[in-house]
């Protein structure tokens, strides 16, 4: 005889990712590593910013390079003789906690104070996937258009630090960096918003200060 049964599953894929992310954070905390999830569109300046921070911060830095073209970015970081793991995400539009878990296994965590995780260049998909980082930093450049912030509210609402980058070319691309900054503040009153240029290093010291403040709790 056959019978029909209802089976409750209640397995939320987002919740499962969050659990893994919490576990990642525990692993990081055990080795006293502070991790920053670096988000933003392709070309916004994520890799350049991390490179600048490696040069200017007086800390032991490590990098997980998760951008789709990870080999290129990973090679860029390797020049600075810091531990780097490149994640091959294939066509995936975001990193998830599981991928990061494996990258952590390949890093000498005891030798790292500050870990940057460069996410896949995308302003939408990474939002729902916590990685286990302590803060989220989103890098948006003026050349993406000054309505980019208001068009992508979720990512700005979920970030602790918003970097409005490439202000050196704002005039040339007819973008109002003030509008982008105030849109970010409107979406997320708790976020710290910094205007920067990696060409002139405007705002870089401020970014360093903010990250160090977060690290010191």
């Amino acid at each position: 005889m056959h019978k029909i049964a209802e089976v409750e599953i209640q397995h939320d894929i987002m919740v499962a990712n969050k659990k893994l992310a919490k576990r990642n954070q525990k692993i990081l905390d055990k080795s006293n590593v502070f991790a920053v999830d670096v988000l933003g569109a392709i070309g916004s300046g994520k890799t350049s910013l991390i490179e600048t921070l490696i040069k200017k911060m007086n800390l032991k830095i490590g990098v997980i390079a998760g951008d789709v073209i990870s080999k290129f970015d990973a090679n860029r970081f390797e020049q600075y003789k810091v531990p780097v793991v490149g994640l091959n995400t294939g066509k995936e539009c975001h990193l998830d906690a599981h991928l990061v878990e494996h990258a952590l296994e390949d890093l000498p965590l005891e030798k790292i104070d500050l870990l940057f995780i460069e996410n896949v260049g995308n302003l939408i998909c990474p939002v729902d996937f916590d990685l286990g980082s302590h803060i989220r930093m989103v890098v948006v450049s003026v050349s993406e258009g000054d309505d980019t912030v208001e068009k992508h509210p979720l990512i700005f609402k979920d970030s602790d630090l918003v970097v409005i980058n490439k202000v050196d070319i704002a005039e040339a691309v007819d973008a109002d960096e003030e509008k982008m900054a105030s849109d970010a503040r409107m979406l997320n009153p708790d976020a710290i918003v910094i205007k920067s240029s990696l060409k002139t290093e405007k705002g870089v010291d401020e970014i360093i200060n903010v990250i160090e403040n977060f690290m010191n709790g």
Partner: protein
Amino acid sequence: MHELSMADAMVKTILDAAEKNQAEKILEATIEIGKLTMLNPDQLKFLLEVLTEDTLLEDSEIHIEEIPVEIECKSCDYKGLTNVDDSDHYLIIVKCPQCGERDLKVTSGRECNVKNIKIEKSD
């Protein structure tokens, strides 16, 4: 968008549960998708059809239920649904429908939940 990897994870979750419960057939499966996940239900449905070929789920009826967005306002203590305006559906996470303040927490609408299945098994 990541409909494919999500659909893949859902199918695995369902087949796993079916196996654990010695299902011979899966009649129905219900999935809940939060309105803020940016997952497109039509695309998801299509991918589920493709991914379930030659599995126990091949002929099952898969229901996709949308979960509305709920917020909590830190300024006026409003708790509950916000109206989704499809032309600009983000606004809801930005402004409290009651007091207009912006300091909100999204409490529901980001789910991607495999809820339940209806199976046939021998007793």
